[in-house]
């Protein structure tokens, strides 16, 4: 291994707040050599993004620093702002998390690439555009000439991220920081971007700092890994070593929390002889209405289909997973089943036919509950937890269910929260705690089916693991069936009995979880399976 390109030694960062300093990074020491990829893994708030800003010298005025960050021997902390401007984009590049917000919406994509070439390599605009086209072709964009002239809203997420990557590589920098570059993308697109990253990395040998919350992903692309927790690097070393023999307790917990399809969390499927609890029969949902003026001008119908004749059934106590990318119609189905969307077709529940909102009476509502993705939005910010939880008790209350404070306390304890939380407001709780409250609300009526709509996708992996464990536990205790909607194939393979795959409004596959390794699958399902990174190779 040669001289390190990026060398961080004893670096600490504090932010001044009205109530004193808060530590963001604590004695961080890292080194990345040419040709190396260092994966920096941590959960939200761990300080991983602060480190990226520190390296890029993009810190607020309230920052206080100690230690050093060196780029091929030059200490960036002691470099003047003018010199830093010359280094950024030329010697250190950066790829951002969300291409839809990191590109200027009012400038053509080509301009945003070419301006870097003009600035750092002194090309004329004409030269820069010509070179820009080459660069775009190089990152696998099929029509570089047109793409240069397009605006961000005219390109897909994957195309935009390719432009961002081309920009980062444009001046052949020595070091590039990748800040979760695939998190905002769909699974299959993310896989393609990852392949592009690997190819460019091998070709250029750039020293890469790859920041991610996703251990499985890092284990595939990095040569070294550093785990960051509350501003401290708790463990670092070669990928194989850290994943196989994690020494630090936090790393061990983190690894254990990663969903692993071979590590099943639920018992075998309930007896197949059971009559289905819910049957969804040819349910279709159409969004939008025909624009009045469009009709006037004889335009084609622009109505967007959310679901096309989806049919499935759920048995009592069964966990049915639904996977698909965003916009595939997963949530649309959930909303149809809870009366939030109009639908065609019918739903049969406990022998009754339900063809619309009016058929969903109190009994149906009590038996079928839904939990939403964002607890921030699903808990009313102006109600205390007590009010939120006592509502379903009052609504579906049976004589045997008590409605007093004790009942709310029991609900909270059921989801492993202290009963004293009843007097708090949602904003006084953490994300994971809020989602537990939402779960408690759904279980207050002892439902037979709970629809979980991406309920863990806003949570960190360790919080996700504890929420999943809670759900599995509740399922065992009450025999509740789940319709578990997610984009995380590894997660759903851990807990689902059967898996439905949705693609652009259609249900393309509905198979037993064991059959996912079989051959008889829809092409989309197969490409989805191929795109998902296999989790870290280690014992949990």
């Amino acid at each position, binding site marked *: 291994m040669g001289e390190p390109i990026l060398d961080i030694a004893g670096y600490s960062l504090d932010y001044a707040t009205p109530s004193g300093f808060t530590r963001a990074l604590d004695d961080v020491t890292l080194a990345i050599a040419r040709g190396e990829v260092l994966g920096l893994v941590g959960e939200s708030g761990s300080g991983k993004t602060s480190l990226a800003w520190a390296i890029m010298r993009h810190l607020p005025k309230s920052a206080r620093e100690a230690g050093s960050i060196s780029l091929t021997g030059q200490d960036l902390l002691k470099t003047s702002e003018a010199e830093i401007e*010359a280094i950024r984009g030329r010697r250190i590049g950066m790829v*951002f998390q969300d291409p839809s917000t990191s590109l200027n919406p009012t400038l053509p994509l080509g301009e*945003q690439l070419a*301006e870097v070439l003009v600035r750092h390599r002194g090309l004329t605009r004409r030269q820069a555009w010509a070179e820009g086209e080459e660069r775009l072709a190089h990152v696998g964009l099929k029509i570089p000439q047109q793409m240069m002239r397009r605006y961000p809203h005219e390109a897909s997420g994957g195309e935009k991220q390719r432009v961002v990557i081309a920009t980062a590589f444009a001046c052949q920098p020595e070091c590039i920081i990748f800040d979760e570059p695939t998190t905002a993308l769909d699974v299959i697109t993310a896989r393609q971007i990852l392949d592009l990253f690997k190819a460019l990395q091998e070709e250029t040998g750039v020293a890469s700092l790859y920041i991610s919350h996703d251990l499985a992903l890092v284990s595939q692309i990095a040569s070294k890994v550093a785990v960051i927790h509350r501003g401290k690097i708790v463990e670092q070393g070669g990928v194989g070593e850290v994943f196989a023999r994690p020494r630090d307790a936090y790393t061990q917990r983190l690894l254990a929390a990663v969903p692993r399809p071979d590590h099943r969390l639920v018992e075998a499927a309930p007896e197949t002889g059971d009559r289905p609890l819910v049957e969804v029969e040819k349910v279709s949902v159409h969004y939008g209405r025909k624009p009045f003026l469009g009709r006037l001008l004889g335009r084609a119908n622009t109505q967007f289909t959310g679901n096309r004749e989806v049919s499935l059934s759920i048995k009592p106590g069964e966990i049915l997973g639904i996977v698909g990318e965003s916009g595939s119609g997963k949530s649309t189905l959930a909303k149809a089943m809870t009366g939030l969307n109009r639908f065609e077709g019918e739903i049969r529940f406990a022998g009754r036919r339900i063809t619309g909102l009016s058929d969903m009476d109190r009994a149906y509502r009590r038996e079928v509950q839904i939990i939403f993705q964002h607890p921030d939005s699903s808990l009313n910010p102006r109600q205390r937890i007590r009010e939120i939880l006592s509502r379903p008790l009052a609504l579906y209350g049976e004589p045997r269910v008590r409605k007093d404070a004790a009942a709310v306390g029991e609900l909270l304890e059921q989801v492993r929260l202290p009963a004293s939380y009843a007097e708090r407001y949602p904003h006084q709780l953490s994300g994971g705690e809020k989602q537990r409250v939402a779960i408690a609300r759904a279980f207050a009526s002892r439902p037979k089916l709970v629809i979980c709509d991406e309920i863990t996708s806003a949570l960190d992996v360790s919080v996700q693991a504890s929420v999943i464990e809670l759900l599995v536990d509740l399922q065992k205790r009450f025999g509740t069936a789940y319709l578990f909607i997610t984009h995380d194939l590894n997660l759903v393979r851990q807990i689902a009995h059967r898996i439905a795959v949705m693609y652009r409004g259609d249900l393309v596959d509905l198979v037993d979880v064991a059959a996912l390794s079989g051959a008889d699958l829809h092409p989309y399902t197969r490409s989805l399976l191929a795109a998902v990174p296999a989790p870290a190779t280690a014992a949990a």
Partner: protein
Amino acid sequence: MSPAYVLKRILLIGYTLLVVSLIVFAITQVLPADAAVMMLGENATPDALAALRAKMGLNDPIWMQYLHWLSGVLRGDLGVSMRTGQPVAPAMLEALGRSLLLALFSITLMLAVAIPLGIVAAVRRGRAADLGVGFLSYVGVSLPEFVTATLIVLVLAEWLQWLPATGYVPLTEDPLRGLKHLVLPVLTVSLILIAHVSRMVRSELVDVLHSDYIRAARLKGLSKRQVLFKHALRNALLPTITIVALDVGYLLGGVIVVEEIFALPGIGRQLIVAIQARDLPSIQAGALIMATTYAIANFLADIAYAWLDRRIQYD
């Protein structure tokens, strides 16, 4: 921007003007118990009242009166002034021309001052320049036009005697004197607009400067100046177009007061005169012309916005 969008906006203007004409007609003609009494006064002879009613078509059903009036409006016939006996339309349009001159000067001055002020305040956020601009714009939006105008007259015309306080001289007659008479009204109107727009520019620009793509541009190694002028401003100024168009409505209201104070014979002053004289055709025409001006300004702003910001197709 699709042709359908433009067509939709044009249809909307038509609808807007229809609603406005209904409101104006309702307020001025239908609701007063007897327009003839209103115009001739309580002491008019029954014969005179009857003659006027017949002349004005007041004996027809109300909807007939409206349609009659509307068809006149559509043919460009806004009626005859009860005060002067002259056709209303030419007088009103001439007055509108003077008001538009006032508006044009005011908007130009406003843009020249408000945008730089907003930029300085946003870039030097939290510092003395920002607080100064913030304080001035707060005071500016909190002063009614008549107070601003009064204070300006008090200082510039009364104490310092620099400029004439009232009156109007056409620019074609004597450009220098004409301009001198326009200075104080333009100053009043633009001060209020500056206060409003500089605040908007500041807050839009502060938001934009905090966006991911601005950070991304900085981290590509672009200088602060490049980032501000090439990346940030175009995004911050786009919404300002809409704000300026909405301000035209405010401007039109303010123009009524400002023209009255400075005795500038624009459409606002014509309206006040008409209201005081209970000259119904003139009131109707003035109100309709003002609303039309506003609707057209908004339409142009929407079209400009859609053209500049290619992201929106329909609202």
